[in-house]
């Protein structure tokens, strides 16, 4: 029997076996240490600007390994007991607990700062020194003279006004946390909070399958509740978000994957009533998915979790080829299977090509995540197709009788209505189009990067609450300062800081964090020194008048603080930094606290006309990118549609409209449904339409390739149902973007699938079947 196989097939089958063997080895290597990425930002386009890229990377790498738990109660002793319970559960050995966030300065830095006494003056003190009359300055100095204790930083003669103490206190405002009974404490609206900041050694972003911290946190919450402490627990951190994303993603992968697989198996079983088609179709899917994963990993280095979620829906598409083969084989003689394969393969190739083109079009968007998805899907489809082409006739060695189910199903085509030229059809078509128009007119669009975020709302709410309570800086909006030298960078920062101070006074933002607050520019430091020395002389004279004590009245000039001294004394515990780029320019970030929607406009304006200051709004920037590409992809969709129409005209001539019209209508129905549901159209809906173009047309192609063949209808029907299930399940995803995508495909495919047989050509002659 095998002798009937052409020589060419034997070579192909062996070549494919070789590929699968290599693939198996790579898979074994891959799964020993899975390395999936969950960070949403990796899906987003890379910064076109190297400086901005560096800035973002610095911000992210600092945040990636840290997370914090807040334990709060109205009663301080309850808060302490609850915090102790939490700590015992999460970090009994206290390896991860960070206790240095209490706003105090490292000892080495304090030493260095003391030498710069006079050059470092808090903003409020500067204002006061500039306007205060001599008598007021004298009063304040004398008042300090008779206090039981000084500020611990300077003796009275060095700093009679306690200016350095004021400056150190101002720096401590960067953290709201204060030490209390050995805890990091803060009071917020009557609640006593204890902060437990943790730092992980490895990046939380790649430890996707660990989920350890979320588990520890859950059991800590439980112990606190079990002990009956009336305490609130809030947790925040990139690693927790990553864990939650990973957990959800793996859940979705198993739901979508298992759901589609079960659907495929059940349909295959019902249709063919034999184990062999099930095993072989599953084999083609397994090889398809494995190849997709391996090649994606080889090309991109790391696979994003969203890719695999999306990839799970591939099962519903890649099974088409195997089903088509068996549908064609069913009820025919075993010996004719090579011939059958040759008979159906042109259609399969064309279907693969249109699907592949559609998936590749996804990759044209500048989103690295979509490129992965495109590569993943193309490879998966191709590998599944090649498995069918190269192996199925070899492995399929028994007759496949027609089942009753298949018989009944295939016959349903005969009863399906068919477009004809009588008056009823055009009239109802016009009515339906008018109805669709009501939906289309309500269409809106949205471009929001948060659509890619899939963290549970509870976790996001806690992140916001923790950010507000701790007064953390915003990761989304900031200023980027630049300068040719450290001095010009710091001066540029100071020019901005003056404007930001106004915004703080007007309560538009709570505060900001800038390097120049810690290391003022030389110009500012020498101005400060002048103010301090003048005040010092006033204080000394007042003291002489009040006590008669003659002291050495020779002022000591401060030793200015420069950035490198500051940086080395800080010992890695500093909240601010600057860096130098390849061209030798210096850059720093000015981070903001308490940014709300209303303050963004004022902030953006603050940068206007300032040299070396850029307003960075990541949310806005990503949304702009998404919007640009939504429009470009829409154009691409139109061009692609025209291209496919031309391709079909080339092969089918005047009958081509029967292949593409159902898909065009399906797309229109999809948009109308989005309009009716008041769901705004976003880039992922456009992408779903592109994919619809690639896949929906397959049905038309099969129907045109083999007019009147019931087996083709059977294959189209089964393929359609399983595709629908796969993408329908995607519509259950918690990631808004994937959900919109799933919904788009679900509606588009359903309508295309229902419409396709409507436009099927008349059978060539009633004789055939």
């Amino acid at each position, binding site marked *: 029997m095998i002798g009937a196989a052409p020589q060419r097939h034997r070579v192909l089958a062996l070549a494919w076996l070789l590929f699968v063997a290599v693939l198996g080895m790579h898979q074994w290597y891959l799964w020993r240490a899975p390395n999936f990425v969950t960070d949403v930002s990796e899906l987003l386009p890379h910064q076109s600007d190297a400086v901005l890229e560096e800035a973002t990377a610095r911000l992210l790498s600092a945040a990636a390994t840290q997370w914090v738990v807040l334990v709060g109660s109205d009663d301080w002793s309850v808060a302490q007991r609850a915090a102790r319970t939490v700590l015992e559960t999460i970090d009994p050995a206290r390896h991860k607990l960070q206790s240095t966030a209490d706003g105090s300065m490292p000892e080495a830095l304090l030493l260095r700062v003391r030498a710069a006494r006079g050059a470092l003056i808090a903003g409020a003190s500067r204002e006061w020194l500039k306007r205060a009359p001599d008598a007021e300055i004298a009063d304040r100095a004398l*008042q300090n003279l008779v206090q039981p204790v000084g500020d611990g930083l300077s003796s009275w003669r060095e700093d009679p006004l306690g200016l350095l103490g004021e400056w150190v206190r101002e720096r401590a405002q960067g953290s709201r946390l*204060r030490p209390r009974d050995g805890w990091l404490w803060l009071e917020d609206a009557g609640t006593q909070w204890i902060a437990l900041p943790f730092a992980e050694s490895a990046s939380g972003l790649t430890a996707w399958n660990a989920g350890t911290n979320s588990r520890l946190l859950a059991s800590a919450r439980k112990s606190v509740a079990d002990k009956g402490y009336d305490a609130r627990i809030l947790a925040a951190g990139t690693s927790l978000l990553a864990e939650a994303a990973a957990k959800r993603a793996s859940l979705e992968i198993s739901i979508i994957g298992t759901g589609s697989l079960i659907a495929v198996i059940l349909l295959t079983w019902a249709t063919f009533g034999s184990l062999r088609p099930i095993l072989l179709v599953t084999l083609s899917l397994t090889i398809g998915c494995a190849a997709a994963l391996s090649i994606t990993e080889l090309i991109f280095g790391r696979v994003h979790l969203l890719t695999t979620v999306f990839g799970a829906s591939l099962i519903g598409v890649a099974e088409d080829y195997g089903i088509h083969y068996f549908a064609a084989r069913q009820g025919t003689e075993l010996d004719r299977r090579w011939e059958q394969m040759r008979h159906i393969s042109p259609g399969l190739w064309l279907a693969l090509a249109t699907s592949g083109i559609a998936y590749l079009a996804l990759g044209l968007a500048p989103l690295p995540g979509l490129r992965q998805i495109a590569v993943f899907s193309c490879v998966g489809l191709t590998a599944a197709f090649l498995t069918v082409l190269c192996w199925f006739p070899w492995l399929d060695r028994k007759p496949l009788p027609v089942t009753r189910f298949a018989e009944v199903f295939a016959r349903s085509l005969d009863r399906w209505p068919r477009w004809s030229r009588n008056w009823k059809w055009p009239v109802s078509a016009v009515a339906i189009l008018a109805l669709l128009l009501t939906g289309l007119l309500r269409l809106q669009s949205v471009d929001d990067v948060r659509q890619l975020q899939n963290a549970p709302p509870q976790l996001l709410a806690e992140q916001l609450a923790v950010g507000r309570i701790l007064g953390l800086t915003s990761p989304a909006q900031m200023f980027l300062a630049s300068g040719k030298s450290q001095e010009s960078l710091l001066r540029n920062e100071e020019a901005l800081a003056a404007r930001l101070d106004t915004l703080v006074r007007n309560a538009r933002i709570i505060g900001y964090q800038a390097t120049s607050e810690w290391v003022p520019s030389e110009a500012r430091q020498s101005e400060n020194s002048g103010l301090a020395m003048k005040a010092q002389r006033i204080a000394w004279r007042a003291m002489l008048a009040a006590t008669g004590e003659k002291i050495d009245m020779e002022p000591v000039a401060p030793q200015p603080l420069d950035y490198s001294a500051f940086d080395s004394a800080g010992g890695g515990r500093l909240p601010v930094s600057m860096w130098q780029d390849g061209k030798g320019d210096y850059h720093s970030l000015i981070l903001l606290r308490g940014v709300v929607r209303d303050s963004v406009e004022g902030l953006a304006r603050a940068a206007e006309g300032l040299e070396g200051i850029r307003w960075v709004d990541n949310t806005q920037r990503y949304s702009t990118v998404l919007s640009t590409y939504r429009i470009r992809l829409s154009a691409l969709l139109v061009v692609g549609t025209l291209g496919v129409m031309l391709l079909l005209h080339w092969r089918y001539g005047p009958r081509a409209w029967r292949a593409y019209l159902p898909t065009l209508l399906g797309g229109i129905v999809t948009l109308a449904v989005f309009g009716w549901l008041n769901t705004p159209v976003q880039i992922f809906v456009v992408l779903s339409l592109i994919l619809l173009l690639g896949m929906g047309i397959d049905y038309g192609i099969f129907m045109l390739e083999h007019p009147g063949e019931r087996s083709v209808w059977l294959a189209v029907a089964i393929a359609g149902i399983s595709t629908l299930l796969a993408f329908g399940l995607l519509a259950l995803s918690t990631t808004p973007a994937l959900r919109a995508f799933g919904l788009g495909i679900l509606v588009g495919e359903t309508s295309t699938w229902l419409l396709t047989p409507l436009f099927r050509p008349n059978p060539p002659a009633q004789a055939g079947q």
Partner: protein
Amino acid sequence: MKMLPCLVLITTMVQSAEVPRTELLHQLSQPVVLRGNFAQQRQIVGFRRPVQSTGRFVVVRGTGLLWHTLRPFESMLTVNRQKLSMSSGPGLSNTTTLDATKEPMLRTLNSLLQGMVVADLPELQAQFDVEVRPSGVTDWVMTLQPKQAALRSRFVSIELAGGKYVQSVRLQEQTGDVTIVRFTDQMEDDHLTDVEVGQLR
């Protein structure tokens, strides 16, 4: 197995060393309100003679302190749970206030100032490791060590001495300044005047 009793013994010893020998303080009076006079000598680096100041104090147990300097010029220091404020100038019109919820060190400083005048053990122990020992001159001597690591370097030593009342306090700061305060004419009371209530608010 023999290790266990040994360990228990060691831990008990360690613990007992940490507990201040409060029995030495048995005759210390603990009124709700205590008033009195103070005389302060502050030896400041670079000064030939110490800066002398005198005035009156009012301390309310667990609540706050009024430190009213009268000579060489008038100045008022007010300490309570929430803040520390200093007033000076004509009619005490020139005031600076520090908020205890914002200043990292202020809680410790406030506890020290309130606690040192009356040797308020619970108040002091919240922020300091307290050690009490007998003394030849006075009935007892108390030394304080800040619990907060960042503050430990700020004070070289803090020492209180007294009998029924605290008689003197000696504070030596890292900056080299040394303050010695002597208290006299203590009077016990159980309530504040309306003016004092207003000042302490």
